[in-house]
């Protein structure tokens, strides 16, 4: 797997993240880090997304920084073309 990264999102007020932001982070964690691999056949490039992910050691920054990377809350819409059950995200303390 080859990739280039420009910026780490660090810090942390996970509790302040919106459910949509957490949902995206969880999706990234599953889709990018897990699943079947045909050895040597994962080729990805990071384009237009400045983030480094360490599992979900997502060391997530302040909400403002997260917004810069993920786009403004108003403009963001995860949407889904999938049918069937969608994952729920629970952010409990």
């Amino acid at each position, binding site marked *: 797997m080859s990739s280039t990264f420009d910026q780490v999102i660090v810090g942390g007020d996970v509790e302040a993240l919106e459910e949509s932001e957490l949902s995206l982070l969880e999706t990234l964690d599953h889709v990018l880090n897990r699943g079947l*691999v*045909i050895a040597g056949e994962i080729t990805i490039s990071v384009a237009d997304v400045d983030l480094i992910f360490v599992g979900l050691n997502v060391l997530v920054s302040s909400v403002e920084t997260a917004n810069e990377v993920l786009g403004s809350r108003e403009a963001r819409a995860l949407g889904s073309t999938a049918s069937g059950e969608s994952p729920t995200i629970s952010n409990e303390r």
Partner: protein
Amino acid sequence: MLNSYLYCVAHEDPNFKDELSGLDGRGVEVLNHDALFVVASKFDGEMVPVTRENVLQHEAIVRTTFSTTTVLPFRFGCLVTTSGLRSYLTIRERALLERLAHVRDCVEMSVKIIWQNSSENEDSGCVVPNLDEAGAGTAFLMLKRQELLGSDRVEQEARELEAWLGAGLRDIVRQEQITIEPKQRLVLSASYLVERARLTDYRRELGRLQAERTNLHFLSSGPWPPYTFANIDLEFGTHFGVS
């Protein structure tokens, strides 16, 4: 040259009702190889850009397929030639079918635990050495000892956390995969393979566990297709970006 971009493997044709559009707007196809069905689309290029759109599109195709049948999701970015895919499926057919049987009727649920306060992974209560009175060497060793004792305590607490969570959920889940990182805020990351029929039990038990530890921050999600339990090969460290 067009490669095949892979989304997931199934043991039966998902028989999509509608035409699905994959990455780059390419039509999603179902490729059949003996007892296996691979959901894929053509991809023009050698590298798959990690963009929000592509990631969500990948997940959407996997999830749509998962809504109709058991799947083993591919990791994002899997590009193969036609011959490469045929070779892979021929060699791995039995292992893939066994893994599909293992995850049948199951979903993946995730739990992440975050230390609520920084003090939870600090060694509070230790005596701070008086660096003026101790010599430099002694002071260094004292601080190092504190650091090690603190690390040991934090690691022990993290392992107790792992044991506590496992004790509560182990009888309900088919398989678990837990990673602990004592020195990180994200101290524990767990994935559980849960039979759909036991989801209610799982959620009830997780709720009970969360209520027991109000000093911790829980991030739970699911149901997911079984990404964590799909790989038939040894996992390799793929922490994205930072080694």
